[in-house]
């Protein structure tokens, strides 16, 4: 049953993307979009959409909303942090690559986690190997795995775990 859900999710994503692109709900646009999305869905059956592994429970949807706000706040915070570093004449850096672990199993969830980490204060995902993430950190507080995980990953993981599992 899961593959029908995946396919319909992919189809819905593609169709939504098409409508957004065209910015119109005219009958001809919808018709062409329907055909195109159907063909691409059938050609790329094993592809993923952003929402394909998202749990469709009300709680997950609420968490998604919370995640978006949390992410936006973190993004602004990270830029202010960056501004502080770049604009100060001394360039207060203590860079290094640390290792953290994640509990997320779903691929989409891990991708979103890595992307979120890259866009949040002072961290950049360099590599991912199973459950281990290697993070470049501009100001390394501690190279210890547990401490780094608590500082970098757990904020997003709480949301993403509910959303994707």
């Amino acid at each position, binding site marked *: 049953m899961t593959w029908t859900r995946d396919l319909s999710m*992919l189809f819905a*994503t*593609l169709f939504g*993307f*098409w409508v957004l*692109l*065209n910015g119109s709900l*005219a009958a*001809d*646009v919808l018709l*062409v979009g329907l055909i*195109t*999305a159907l063909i*691409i*869905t059938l050609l*790329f059956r*094993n*592809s*993923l*959409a*952003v929402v394909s592994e998202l749990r469709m429970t009300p709680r997950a949807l609420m968490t998604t909303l919370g995640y978006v706000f949390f992410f936006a706040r973190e993004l602004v915070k990270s830029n202010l942090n960056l501004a502080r570093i770049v604009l100060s004449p001394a360039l207060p850096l203590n860079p290094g690559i640390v290792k953290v672990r994640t509990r997320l199993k779903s*691929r*989409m969830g*891990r*991708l979103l986690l*890595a992307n979120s980490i890259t866009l949040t204060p002072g961290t950049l*995902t360099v*590599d*991912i190997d199973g459950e281990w993430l290697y993070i470049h950190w501009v100001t390394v507080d501690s190279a210890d795995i547990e401490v780094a995980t608590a500082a970098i990953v757990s904020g997003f993981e709480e949301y993403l775990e509910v959303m994707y599992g």
Partner: protein
Amino acid sequence: MIKRAIALLLLLAVGALFASLLAGYVPDSELNQTARYYAERTAGDIGAANIVTAIVVTYRGLDTLGEVTVLFITAAIVGLVLAQGQPALPHTPRQLRPPVGELLTTGSRMLTPLILLLGVYVFVNGHLTPGGGFQGGAIIASGMLLLLLADPLKHFSHQLISVLESLSGLLFVGIGVLGVLFASGFLDNRLLPIGNLGELFSAGVIPVIYSLIGLKVGAEFSSMLANLSEIDKTDKTEET
């Protein structure tokens, strides 16, 4: 050294020519006769909002047919040149190559369908937006490239690509011939009603022709990329 001096001398001559051209250039303030005709008549005659598209597909449609043919020949020659002669280069064994990485794999599986859809959007809306078959074809080829990068063992189905290419080429010419039979000339777009300006189903057969061009160009560029990348036929037989 003497070669460099000759090159500089030649460049100096060409540069002087360019400078005189530039000095004598007077910008037009009015459209010339041809451009005026196109600007005035496109909306009424062709029904396409994008005048450049109208020129490329209908007014000078025969040139575009030639262009697509040239591109086809180029792709074929690239394939032929690379396939003939000695066996291919000794490749870096796959085991020594770094693996693709989970992030890129997941990301490409998520993005490839969207990129293909963007390509389709670009060529279907060729008569309304700055897009068109060539741009859309290039975007589709880029999507295939992403697929190829993320999963180097994945083979392009050369057969599917060549079938798609020939089929869209045939249909392109077929629509042109139908224009002779049922409208007023080869590649005439008034085979279908020209509709209202600015709608998706307007400008007669222009969206259809541009979609066919897009598919054909996308297939050609994809096969060019597949031929020039390392993942070619000889490699595959080694793998399997």
